[in-house]
């Protein structure tokens, strides 16, 4: 281990890099646990209302764009793959492929948000926005509005996490270009990777819960 690199990377409160690395890893996991419960609050509401109003939730789900949801799921899974590869590159100290995979992850993440943008824009166009002007007037209208509220709360919160994730990746990218990371010191990449995968996992649950209720077509 290079003496100078260790000295700059090691914070004074830790005894060695290993301790520091484990603390960072566990710290992020603990943070993700709070995130699980943060989304969990809305999921609990979703569970309760879906049990109470199954028909309304099916109607609401049928009106979502099934294909956009599916494509976005695939995009996010791919981005998780590139993120995992970025972490892998950082562990081996391969700077160029680290930069490449970080950029790929950001591209996929942005693609997800662009698709989301079009989905939201369409909802605004047809007036599927909770509130006094909610456009749907068919059967179960109030409860369908509840479903749409959940749709926006869940996907909005998820999109917000994506935006934060993109910000983190941007910082990593800059640092990677400056050569901050090495096979000894790459905790920030690993820890940010955990966050990115978590956001992916949330979507893995959102996809069937929002887009796939009841049989389609």
């Amino acid at each position, binding site marked *: 281990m290079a003496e100078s690199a260790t000295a700059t990377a090691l914070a004074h409160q830790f005894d060695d890099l290993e301790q520091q690395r484990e603390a960072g890893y566990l710290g992020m996991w603990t943070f993700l646990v709070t995130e699980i419960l943060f989304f*969990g609050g809305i999921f609990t509401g979703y569970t309760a209302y879906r*049990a109470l109003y199954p028909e309304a939730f099916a109607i609401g789900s049928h009106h979502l764009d099934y294909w956009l949801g599916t494509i976005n799921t*695939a995009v996010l899974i791919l981005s998780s793959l590139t993120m995992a*590869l970025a972490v892998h590159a950082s562990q081996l100290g391969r700077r160029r492929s680290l930069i490449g995979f970080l950029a790929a992850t950001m591209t996929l993440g942005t693609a997800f948000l662009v698709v989301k943008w079009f989905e939201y824009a369409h909802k605004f166009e047809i007036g599927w926005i909770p509130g006094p002007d909610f456009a749907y007037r068919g059967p179960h209208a109030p409860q369908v509005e509840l479903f749409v509220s959940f749709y926006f709360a869940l996907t909005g919160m998820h999109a917000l996490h994506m935006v934060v994730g993109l910000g983190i990746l941007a910082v990593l990218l800059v640092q990677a270009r400056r050569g901050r990371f090495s096979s000894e010191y790459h905790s920030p990449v690993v820890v940010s990777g955990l966050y990115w*995968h978590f956001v992916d996992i949330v979507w*893995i649950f959102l996809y069937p819960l929002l887009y796939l209720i009841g049989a389609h077509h």
Partner: protein
Amino acid sequence: MSHHVIPRRVYFVIAALLMLLLAATAWVAELDLGRLSVVAALGIALVKALLVILYFMEVRYSSRLSWIVAGAGFFWLLILIALTMSDVLTRTAVTLPAE
């Protein structure tokens, strides 16, 4: 976390599995399974999440403590949902499921 570096091949295999499971989710949703379709959809999602957690997030190669931390999050979520539903589902005893 450990110094263990997972071979790149593993990541590709996992990603391929995830894509397959995505196709499976979409396919299962087309079938008319009634109540079982929720179970199937969530079951597949759970498997996908586990794959991501164990391999992409490398929990499989980590200390027991990270297993506990990750597990605690889901366990507490289960507490929240289960006890809330113990109220919601029993509030009016008048709605009976069809036999």
